[in-house]
C-alpha cells in the first residue's frame, strides 16, 4: 500500500511541488520575479480569470439543470428506451469537447450546414452566438451534462426503497422526490456540479476554438508560444489555487455525506416511478434533447467530412497518430486499472491512516487542468537523467496516470462497496495472506467493476488532449493532438474527417469492449 502512495506522490505531488518550486528560482536564484511579473500584469489576467470562472459556473449550473432531471427520468422512471437514452446522452462525454465545438461550427457557421436551409440574417445571428461565452457554454454544458446525469443515476441507487416507500404512504411521487429523494442525493448532485465546474475551468480546446479568452489558455500560450516555463508555471498557480479551494469546500461540506451514499446491496431492487400519461411527452422531450445535443452536431460533422479526398488525406496524415493513440490508450487503461484498483482498495478499506489524502490527491489531479499536469510533469522529468521517460511515450502514459487515476479508483471503490466484507474475512479465516485474498477473492468478485474501470480509462486516454498536448515527445503525437494542431490551417473537410475517425474509433471500441464486458458478466 505504501508503494501505491509512493507512486501517487511521484505521479502527482512531486511534479506539482517542483513546478511551484521552479517559479521561485530564476537562474538558480531565489526570487519572486515571476510572480511580480504575473501580478504586474494582473489587470491583463483578471479578464481571462473572470471569463474562466463565469464559464465554469454557468456550465456547472446548466449541467445540473439538465442532468438531474435526465438522471431522474432515466434512472428512476419507466421511460421507454431509457438505457438507449443513457448511452446516447453519454456520447458527448466520451469524445474530446473540442470535437463538439468543431461539429457545432460545421452546423452554425456562416457557410455551415444550416446556412443552406435558413435565412442569412438568422445564420449571422447563430454564427455570432456560437463564438464567445454562449457557444462555449453550450458546448461544455452538453459535454459535461452526462456526468451529472450518470452520477444522479448512481446516487439514486443509494436510496433504500423502504425510505421512499414510507414517504409514498403519505405523499405522491413528486412530493417524495422533492422532500425525500432529492435531499438525500443532494450532496452527490452538488459534488457532480463541483466536478463539472473544475473540468470546465481547465478546458482549453473549446474556448480556444470558439475564441473566448480563458485563463488556462494563458498557461498553454506561455509554454508553447513563448516557451517561458517559469511564466507558464506561475500562470498555472491561480488555477491550482481555485481547484484546491473548490476541493477543500467539497471536502469539508460534502465528503462525509457522499461516503454515506453507499450503493444498495446486490439483489435490492430500486423503486421505479410509473410515468403514466407523462410517458409519451417525456419520451418526446428526451428524444428532442438527444437530437439537439448528440445527433445534430454529429450529423453536421459527418456531412462536413463528406468530400472525396477528405478521408484518404485524413488517413495518410493521421494513421500513425491513430495507431499510437490506440496503443497508448490500451497501455494507459491497463496501468490505470491496476493502479486505480490499489488506490481504490486503500481508500475503501482505509488501509492507511492517510487514506483520505490519497482520495483527495487523486481527485485534485483529475480536476486540475491538463495543461497544469503537463507543466508539472515537464518540471519533474525534463532533465538528462530521466530522458528515457521524458523523451519517450512513457511521459504520455504518466500524464494519463496522473490525471485519470481518480476515475478508476472511484469505480473500484464503488465496486468494493458492493462486495460483502465477509468474503474477504472468510478467506482471512482460512489463513490466506493479503495478496492471495486480493488475487483469489477480491479481484474475481470485483471483475465486472474492474473491466468497467478499464473501459472508462481507455476512453479517457483516447480522448485526452490537455496534458498530452504539452508532454508528447517529438513525432509521437496522439490523434486528438494531431487534429488539434491541424485545426489551425487544415481544410474543414479534413478536420471533420479526422474528428469522425476519432469519434468512430471511440464509439466502436466502446461497443466492442462493452459487448465483451457484458458477455464476461453473463458468463459469470
Amino acid at each position: 500500500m505504501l508503494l501505491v502512495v509512493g507512486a501517487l506522490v511521484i505521479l502527482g505531488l512531486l511534479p506539482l511541488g517542483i513546478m511551484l518550486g521552479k517559479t521561485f528560482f530564476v537562474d538558480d536564484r531565489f526570487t519572486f520575479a515571476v510572480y511580480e511579473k504575473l501580478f504586474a500584469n494582473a489587470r491583463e489576467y483578471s479578464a481571462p480569470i473572470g471569463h474562466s470562472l463565469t464559464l465554469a459556473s454557468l456550465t456547472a449550473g446548466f449541467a445540473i439543470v439538465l442532468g438531474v432531471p435526465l438522471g431522474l427520468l432515466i434512472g428512476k422512471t419507466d421511460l421507454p428506451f431509457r438505457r438507449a437514452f443513457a448511452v446516447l446522452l453519454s456520447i458527448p462525454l466520451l469524445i474530446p469537447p473540442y470535437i463538439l465545438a468543431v461539429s457545432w461550427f460545421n452546423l452554425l457557421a456562416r457557410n455551415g450546414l444550416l446556412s443552406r436551409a435558413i435565412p442569412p440574417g438568422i445564420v449571422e445571428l447563430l454564427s455570432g452566438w456560437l463564438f464567445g461565452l454562449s457557444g462555449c457554454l453550450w458546448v461544455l454544458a452538453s459535454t459535461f451534462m452526462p456526468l451529472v446525469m450518470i452520477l444522479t443515476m448512481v446516487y439514486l441507487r443509494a436510496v433504500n426503497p423502504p425510505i421512499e416507500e414510507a414517504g409514498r404512504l403519505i405523499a405522491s411521487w413528486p412530493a417524495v422526490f422533492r422532500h425525500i429523494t432529492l435531499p438525500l442525493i443532494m450532496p452527490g448532485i452538488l459534488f457532480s456540479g463541483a466536478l463539472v465546474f473544475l473540468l470546465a475551468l481547465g478546458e482549453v480546446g473549446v474556448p480556444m476554438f470558439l475564441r473566448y479568452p480563458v485563463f488556462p489558455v494563458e498557461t498553454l500560450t506561455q509554454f508553447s508560444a513563448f516557451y517561458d516555463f517559469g511564466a507558464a508555471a506561475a500562470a498555472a498557480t491561480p488555477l491550482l489555487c481555485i481547484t484546491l479551494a473548490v476541493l477543500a469546500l467539497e471536502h469539508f461540506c460534502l465528503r462525509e455525506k457522499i461516503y454515506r451514499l453507499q450503493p444498495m446491496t446486490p439483489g435490492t431492487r430500486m423503486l421505479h416511478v410509473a410515468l403514466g400519461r407523462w410517458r409519451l411527452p417525456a419520451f418526446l422531450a428526451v428524444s428532442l434533447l438527444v437530437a439537439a445535443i448528440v445527433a445534430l452536431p454529429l450529423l453536421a460533422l459527418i456531412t462536413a467530412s463528406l468530400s472525396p479526398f477528405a478521408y484518404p488525406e485524413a488517413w495518410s496524415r493521421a494513421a500513425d497518430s491513430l495507431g499510437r493513440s490506440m496503443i497508448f490508450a490500451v497501455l494507459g487503461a491497463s496501468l490505470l486499472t491496476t493502479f486505480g484498483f490499489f488506490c481504490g482498495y486503500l481508500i475503501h478499506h482505509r488501509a492507511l491512516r492517510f487514506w483520505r489524502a490519497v482520495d483527495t490527491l487523486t481527485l485534485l489531479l483529475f480536476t486540475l487542468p491538463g495543461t497544469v499536469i503537463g507543466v508539472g510533469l515537464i518540471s519533474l522529468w525534463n532533465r538528462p537523467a530521466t530522458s528515457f521517460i521524458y523523451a519517450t511515450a512513457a511521459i504520455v502514459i504518466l500524464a494519463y496516470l496522473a490525471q485519470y487515476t481518480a476515475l478508476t479508483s472511484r469505480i473500484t471503490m464503488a465496486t468494493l462497496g458492493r462486495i460483502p466484507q465477509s468474503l474477504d474475512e472468510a478467506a482471512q479465516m482460512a489463513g490466506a495472506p493479503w495478496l492471495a485474498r486480493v488475487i483469489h477473492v477480491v479481484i474475481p468478485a470485483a471483475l465486472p467493476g474492474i473491466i468497467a474501470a478499464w473501459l472508462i480509462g481507455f476512453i479517457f486516454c483516447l480522448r485526452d488532449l490537455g496534458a498530452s498536448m504539452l508532454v508528447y515527445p517529438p513525432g509521437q503525437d496522439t490523434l486528438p493532438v494531431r487534429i488539434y494542431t491541424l485545426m489551425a490551417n487544415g481544410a474543414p473537410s479534413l478536420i471533420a474527417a479526422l474528428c469522425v475517425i476519432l469519434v468512430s474509433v471511440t464509439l466502436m471500441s466502446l461497443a466492442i469492449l462493452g459487448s465483451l464486458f457484458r458477455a464476461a458478466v453473463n458468463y459469470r
Partner: protein
Amino acid sequence: MSAIELRDVSKAYSGRKVIDAISASVACGERVVLLGPSGCGKTTILRLLAGLEVPDSGSISIDSIEVAADGINLIEPGQRHIGMVFQDLALWPHMAVFKHLEFALRYDKSTQVADRPNRILEILEMVRLADRAHAKPGELSGGQQQRVALARALVARPAVVLMDEPLSSLDHELNLHLRGEILRLHATLGFTLIYVTHDREEAAEMGTRVIAIRNGKVHDDANMATTTVTG
C-alpha cells in the same frame, strides 16, 4: 482443559461499549449458544474470537494459547485454526464448491497437499454435496449453499467452529433439517461449537450450554441439561 477463555474482554465502537468486561470459558467439544436480541454484542464476541476484531481490553485464549490481549491481536485469524460460518455465508461467487474447499485448505499447514482432494471429498460426503462439487454458489439452493459454508468451515478440521446465525435466512423446515445436520457433524467431528442465535427454541436445541447476552454483558449462563435460560 478450556478450548476458549475470555477474560474481562471489552470492545467499543465510536465510544459506545458493545462488549463490557465479559469473562467466560468454554470446554473442548462443548456446544455453546450465545443468545440475545439484535445489537447485544453476540456477533462481536464471535468476531473477537475469530480475530476479525481486536479487543480494547482483556484477553482471549484458545487451547490455552493467548491469541489477543489488551488491544493487540497476538495471533492472526488465519493462524487460530478456527472455522466460521458467516451470517450471509460469504460464499465466493466465482468459485465452485470444490474450489472453495481447496482454497480453504491451501493455507492450512497441517494438511499435506496430496491429502487435500481426499479431505475435500470426505467433507463433501459428510455434508451430502459430493455430486455438486463443480457447481458455483449461484447454481445451488439455499440449503446447499448453507452446506458449502459448513463444509468450508470444517474442511481444515478446526478445533473450534463459530456460527453466526447461520440458519436465520432459511425457511422453518430447512432450518430444522440443517440443525440436525450440524448436530450430526458435531457428533462426528467433535469440534467445539460457538453458535449465535436470537431464537430461544433454536438455542435450546443447538446448545449444551446457553449464554444469554444483554447489552454486552453475560446476563445468564445455563447448562441446558439442568437449567432454564432466562435471557
